[in-house]
Each structure stands twice: as structure tokens, then as C-alpha cells.
């Protein structure tokens, strides 16, 4: 079993800055787990701490039942693919893949056989004699992956695995990576700042900010039930509408209208300041007045292909919604915007924690 248990992990730099600040994470055996957050949130530091490349200031790290907190990187059974792939430029593909085996003093014949077999599995068959400099970005990434999995690690760590690929290749590599992880069944952690990547690949996501975990959950949980406004705004290809409002008798006063409020998980008094949140994808519009809706003027329509992004203004507040391209409103038009109450989220305006809605 190679599940990962992290308890109260702290990484403090000599200048007093805490890159990772009291993190608890449990990753199940064979799970594909994403560390997601904006740059500087400590996700890479956490990954490097698991690899052993950063020393841990406080807390513990277990892989399986073994305490790995202060074990040398090479003895952790962990393999890592670096953001720049870190392929050795003076070795050909075969030697690169076989290097971990060379360190372990595996005989040369066996090394070459393992390298050839691993390369074949990642469709690198004809490239064994090439140098990394002669490979495309996608091929380099597969060589780096091959090198990482050639030793059958217990844990695979990926640092921004797709960030060095161009957009089209990225989609292809995403599918490839997901399949590979499922075939190998290896516990995998990857770091990304791209929420779409995390949503598409991961079984579970840990959203991080300022060295702390904001929420851990499945892609569905972080999307539909974000724990606070940070997670709500970070997840989703279009940022969530987060607008200030007031709770009043089970309803919410927002955008100059009174809308039905979701079921609250915390009792709040009437007039309590809240943040009303709805994803743009769930908002619908109508050209005629409808109950429980907001009147706003359409100020911008962006065509996104099959859908259109509509920006509407109600007073100073802005509302975004994504609608089907065929049914997009006209710019300058007055429209009534409504959203289903089960998709409405409420957050406390002060603590930013979610107090209502969600699944």
C-alpha cells in the first residue's frame, strides 16, 4: 500500500516565510491527486517536500506505514517528473530512461531491455538513440515519464506536467496521462495552476492558497460546493459571479432584486451581509419580465463558439452568464436574468466561508 498521509506539515524558509503552513492531506493508494492553486501558494513546495527535495520544518509525512519525514529522497520510492523534464542532454533516450536503474547497479543488458520496454509502452519505440535536444516537447515529456515509471515507483509526482506543451498537444497529453495513471495504478500527485487541468485529470483536488489548504474534494465537490469564495472564484473556466447582498427571511437581496435564497447551513439574522454566488453557466435570461429575476442591461457579448459569454450591468454590479450561442441577447438590450435556487451559493461576507447552498 502506498497511500500518503501528511499531518501538520510546515515548511519555513530561513527568512521566516512559511511556504507550506500546517497542511493535512490524505492521498489514497492509486489515487490521482491534484494540488491546485495560484502561483506562490506553496503547492510546488509541498510536492518537493513529499519528494524530499525540501526539508520539512514541522509535521510528518508517511508513505504507506513508513515515516518518510526525514528519509533521503532516493529511499522514498518516489519518482518525479520536473516541469522542465530534467532530461540529461548528454545521454540518449535509452540511457535517460535507464539512468535510475544504473544508479541501482542493474546490469547493462537488463537496463537496456527495461528502457526499451518502457519506451515502447509510451510509443517512444523508434527514438531510443536520439538525444533529448532532438525530440519535440511532447516526446520529451514522455521520455521523462518513462524514466519516472521505469523503476516502478510507489508514488509518482508531477510538477506542472502540461505547462511546457502547446495548447493542442496539452489536450492530447492530458488524456494520455490519465490513461497511463489508470493503467499503472500508481499513487500520483500533480501540481498545477490550471483548474481545468486539475478538474479533468484528478480524482480529488486540494485547492491551496498562501501555504494552506482551502478545500479538498472531488472535482464535482469543489465545483458545486466550494468551501469559500476563494475556491469558488478559482475553480471554473469562467469566474463565478460573487456579488454582495443581504439575507432577509430566507431570501437574498442582491442586484436591486429579491431572489430566493438557498438552504442555509448556518443560522444568520436578517440583514446579515452575505456574498451571493452563482456560476455563469447556470444563469438563464429572458426578454420578458419573469419572477425571481434580475433586470440588467447587456453590455457585452463574447462569442465562444458553441456558447456566448454575456456581460450585463445592473447599476454598478456586473453579472456574467454563459448561454447557448444561438440564444444570445443583443448588446444594449434589457434582459431578466434568473438562476435556479439549487445552484445558488451563499457565503459569509466577513469570513468568506460558504453558509448556504451546495450539494
Amino acid at each position, binding site marked *: 500500500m502506498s497511500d500518503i498521509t501528511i499531518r501538520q506539515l510546515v515548511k519555513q524558509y530561513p527568512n521566516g516565510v512559511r511556504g507550506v503552513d500546517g497542511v493535512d492531506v490524505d492521498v489514497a493508494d492509486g489515487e490521482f491527486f491534484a494540488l491546485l492553486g495560484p502561483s506562490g501558494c506553496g503547492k510546488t513546495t509541498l510536492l518537493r517536500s513529499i*519528494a*524530499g*527535495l525540501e526539508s520539512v520544518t514541522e509535521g510528518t509525512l508517511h508513505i504507506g506505514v513508513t515515516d518518510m519525514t526525514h528519509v*533521503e*529522497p*532516493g*529511499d522514498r520510492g*518516489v*519518482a*518525479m517528473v*520536473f*516541469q*522542465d*523534464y*530534467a532530461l*540529461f*542532454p*548528454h*545521454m540518449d533516450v535509452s540511457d535517460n530512461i535507464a*539512468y*535510475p536503474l*544504473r*544508479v*541501482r547497479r542493474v546490469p547493462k543488458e537488463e537496463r537496456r531491455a527495461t528502457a526499451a520496454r518502457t519506451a515502447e509502452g509510451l510509443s517512444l519505440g523508434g527514438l531510443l538513440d536520439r538525444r*533529448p*535536444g532532438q525530440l519535440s*516537447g511532447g516526446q*520529451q515529456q514522455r521520455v521523462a515519464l518513462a524514466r519516472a515509471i521505469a*523503476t516502478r515507483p510507489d508514488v509518482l509526482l508531477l510538477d506542472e506536467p502540461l505547462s*511546457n506543451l502547446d495548447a493542442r498537444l496539452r489536450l492530447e497529453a492530458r488524456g494520455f496521462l490519465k490513461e497511463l495513471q489508470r493503467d499503472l495504478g500508481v499513487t500520483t500527485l500533480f501540481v498545477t495552476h490550471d483548474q481545468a487541468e486539475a478538474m479533468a485529470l484528478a480524482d480529488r483536488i486540494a485547492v491551496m492558497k498562501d501555504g494552506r489548504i482551502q478545500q479538498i474534494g472531488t472535482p464535482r465537490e469543489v465545483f458545486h460546493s466550494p468551501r469559500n469564495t476563494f475556491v469558488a472564484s478559482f475553480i471554473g473556466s469562467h469566474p463565478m459571479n460573487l456579488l454582495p447582498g443581504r439575507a432577509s427571511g430566507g431570501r437574498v437581496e442582491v442586484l436591486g432584486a429579491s431572489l430566493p435564497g438557498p438552504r442555509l447551513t448556518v443560522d444568520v439574522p436578517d440583514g446579515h451581509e452575505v456574498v451571493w454566488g452563482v456560476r455563469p453557466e447556470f444563469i438563464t435570461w429572458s426578454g420578458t419580465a419573469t419572477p425571481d429575476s434580475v433586470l440588467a442591461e447587456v453590455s457585452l457579448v463574447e462569442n465562444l463558439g458553441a456558447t456566448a459569454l454575456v456581460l450585463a450591468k445592473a447599476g454598478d454590479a456586473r453579472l456574467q452568464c454563459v448561454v447557448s450561442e444561438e440564444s444570445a441577447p443583443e448588446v444594449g438590450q434589457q434582459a431578466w436574468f434568473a438562476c435556479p435556487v439549487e445552484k445558488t451559493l451563499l457565503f459569509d461576507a466577513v469570513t468568506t466561508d460558504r453558509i448556504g447552498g451546495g450539494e
Partner: protein
Amino acid sequence: MTMATRTPSRTTSRTATRFVGRLGFVVFITVVSVFFALPMVWLVVAPFDANPTMSVKWPDWTLNNFHRILENPYAFGSIVNSLIISVGVVALTVILATLAAYALSRVRIPGRDALLYGLLLLSSIVTGTAAMVPTFQLISALGLINTQLGVVLVMSGGLLPTVVFILKDFMDSVPKSYEESARLYGATPFQILRDVVVPVARPGIAFVAVWSVVQAWSNFLVPFILLRDPTLQPAGVLMYTFYTEAGQADLRLIAAFSLVYTLPVVVIYFLVNRKFGFRFYGGIKS
């Protein structure tokens, strides 16, 4: 100003000025080139002249001068001595400097850069002539006077600061992720150095190796001070003893020997350049 607004006379005078300027430049370059080329021409031509003088002239072709080298009892041995000393210096310098440069490149210690600059500065001021007496006393105290080991140690000591300084720069440019990657596979620091850092920094190492050979090969002062026995002396020092019976500098022997003395360095340079190439491996965007 455009062509259309120029009057013909102005254009002519401008062209003339430009021509004179150009001519002056060419003459200057020629004089400078000849000044530097003359010793080279002498080096190539004089060995084949039956009666070489201090000036460059069309030679009276002969190969007899090279026979004189074979007749000299110490000449061949001195070339071997030069090789022994140079190889010793290069081996010691490159091995020690590689280890030191890697450590200095990777380990953060306070005052590291000050230490490097200090060493570099001191080594370029306080070598050779200024340190002659203390060097002699030190080697004498070590009992290494009149040994090639003593010469190798003193020369390596003189070269090390500069070589460490240059190599550290090359090692700084090796991406950290290469080493971290090797570390994750369980490689020891020595394995990382051998398998990753040294191969990637190879152009730099080849450069300092050639540079050290040239320095050791052409060094006169250190072996001159430390070696008494002519059977141990390198070529550069031996040449100093080439006099005729009349007490004149034996130009025929010196000319021929100079050429023989120069050739190995030129050959080494081309060999190393072909084998290692002074080129760089690049990582990808990081």
C-alpha cells in the same frame, strides 16, 4: 542628408576623405599584424635555416638543426619532462577544481563569493616572482626540491583559483533540476557529479584543461627555481642552457628546439577541440 540634396563636389570630397581614412586604417592594421606575425614567421622559418640569425630572412634550407637536437643529451628527455609536469598539473588541477567548483556552486556558505574573488585576486598578484623565495622555502621544507612533484604542486596551486572560478561559472549554469532528478533516483553526490554535472559542464572542463596545459607547458620560473638536475628539467628551462662553446646563444639549436617545443601544445589544442568541442548543451525553457 539624402543623396538628392548632395552637391557633386561635396560628394567627391567625402569619398576622398573616406578613402584616406580607409587607407590609414589598412596601413595601421598591416603594421600591427606584421609586428605580431614576425616572431611566428621566425619560429617556422628559422629551424630550417643553416645559419639562423635574430632577423627573419629567406632561409638556406636544411634539416641539420634537428640533428643537433638529437645530439643534445638532455633535449628529448626535457620534452618528456615537460609532458610529465603538464599532465600532472592538468590532472591535479582539473580533478581538484571540479570538486571544489561543484561544492562552491551548490553549497551556500556565507562569504562564498568574497572568498572566490579574494583567492582569484591573491593568486594573480602573489604568484611567480613575488612568491619566489617563500615558495622555495616551502618546497624545501617539504623536501621536494629537485623533484617534479614539487613543481606540479606549486604550478597547480597557482592555477587552481582561476580554474575554480571559471568552472564554478560553468557549474552554476547546470540546471538544478538535473541534479534533483538524479537525487530522487538515489544517486549520491559523487554519482551526480560524475554522471550529470561533469558531462554537462564538459566544454568548460575541456577549456580549463587546455588552458592549464598551456600554462604548465610554458611556465619557466617554477621549474627553473625548483629543479637543479638537468635530467629533470622541462623543455622551457633546458632551452635556457643552449649556448655554443663560444658563449653565444646557439640559435640553430634554439630555433629547431622552439618548434619542437611548440608543436605538442598546438596538437593538443586541435585534438581537444575536435574531441570535446567548445560548444554548449542547452536545457529547455525552465
